[in-house]
């Protein structure tokens, strides 16, 4: 068990059966009263943030969570297979858990997988991925404003809104948090 003096950013604790991460904390001690630690916790499964005042002397239960560096290997239907980069152990994770960014995942993509009680519960992709456009209406020369968009399909099969000047074969940078186009990048020689 942890007590309030163990509270620090990143501490992983169990609250009402769910794993949380300490994101912020402040020591407070009202006049002549007990010390409290005003703590913001982020739910590692939903991302929801809650605030609790933990009184000195109260205990916090550690959460059995672990972050592991894993590589995306391949997708079969709705199942994505990842491999632990240290132990080479493979695990299968459903696309549903990853959500929309699952469609932006290319083979060998390095990811961070969060395990709670030995089960994978969340996958964090690199913030940006670079994917080739495989289908799009022909590019409109001159219109580089980017204000007007058209749908384009990238090599993983995902559809992304891109500016009109983008052509098949272009390499584009996509933000995996929003699944949105960021910019066109030069292909490596």
């Amino acid at each position, binding site marked *: 068990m942890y007590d309030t003096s163990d509270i620090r950013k990143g501490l992983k604790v169990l609250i009402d059966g769910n794993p949380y991460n300490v994101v912020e904390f402040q*020591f407070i*001690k009202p006049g002549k009263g007990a*010390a409290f630690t005003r703590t913001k916790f982020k739910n590692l499964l939903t991302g929801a943030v809650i605030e609790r005042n933990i*009184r000195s002397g109260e205990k916090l239960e550690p959460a059995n969570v672990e972050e592991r560096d894993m590589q995306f290997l391949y997708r079969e239907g709705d199942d994505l297979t990842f491999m632990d980069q240290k132990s080479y152990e493979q695990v299968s994770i459903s696309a549903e858990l990853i959500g929309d960014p699952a469609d932006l995942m290319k083979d060998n993509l390095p990811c961070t997988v969060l395990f709670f009680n030995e089960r994978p519960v969340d996958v964090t992709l690199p913030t940006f991925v670079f994917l080739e456009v495989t289908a799009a209406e022909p590019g409109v020369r001159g219109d580089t404003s980017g204000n007007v968009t058209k749908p384009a399909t990238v090599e993983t099969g995902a559809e992304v809104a891109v500016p009109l000047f983008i052509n098949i074969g272009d390499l584009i940078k996509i933000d995996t948090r929003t699944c949105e186009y960021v910019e066109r990048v030069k292909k490596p020689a």
Partner: protein
Amino acid sequence: MTERDRLAPRLARLGARSRALAALRGFFAARDFVEVETPLRVRAPALEVHLAAMTAGPGAWLITSPEYQMKRLLAGGMERIYQVCKCFRADEHGRHHADEFTMVEWYRAPAALDQIAADTEALVAEVARAVRGEPVVEIEGRRIDVGRPWRRLTVAEIMAEHAGVTVRGDEPAEELAAAVAAAGIDVGTATHWDDVFFTAFVERVDPALARMDEPVLLTDWPVRLGALARRSPANPAVVERFEAYVGGIELANAFGELTDPVEQRTRFEADLASRAARGLATPPIDERLVAALAEGLPPCAGIALGVDRLVMLVTGARDIRDVLTFAADEL
């Protein structure tokens, strides 16, 4: 990090701190106060349950406040005394807390608590004027006017308004816990009266105090949080005590001083029983303080004000370390 880099962002505030201390001493000199120095290392520390005194060798502790010795000086006939000194409270670290900090404590005898409240308002305004040129302080970028009379609120009023809890002051802990729970506040494992009270206070009142745009004197504290304060003649469930809050920073704590040696001993014994029940250290009672009260003290009032926090307010600092030459982790 070099000393130059460490200190550079603090230099302006340390200069302001020096000006604030000069203004503070000028304030008391102008009012015929005698500056005193009492020992920091004592034989009987404060016994309040939520204060942890640091040990300083066998049978000795560092003061958490100079109050016991200063009250003995009042018993000895001194009438207006003040002291600027270091105080030590174990395990207190945070944006508003350092385990070694500077306190200014002053007493008037004979006097009523109102006079200490008037001193507090005038002192903070004068220090702000000396440092900033106007009676205004700054917290989290907000300006707070400290030059007008400060707002007075009772603990019962603020708890009712912001926590939705009726606090009488002498109700059993179970009754208060039920009222707090009914207000939708999770009391967790708290069972002691003060823990239940402060769970609600920290959850609802503290944030409300932080939002207030004027300084507040929070008065009429429940008798169970009385410490060294005397009971209010008008309402025995509360004591003559106020806490000064400015922009959510708890700046000072004042008492209409308890002068009854019998009640003082009863409270010390209750504190010791409570400490024992919680598995805390049980240092000796300061018998010389009790004897001094028995010798006789005029009606008197006193206050402890955090100097570092005052400097934070007049310099707009966000963290106490910004106004210290060295924080504990820089030694």
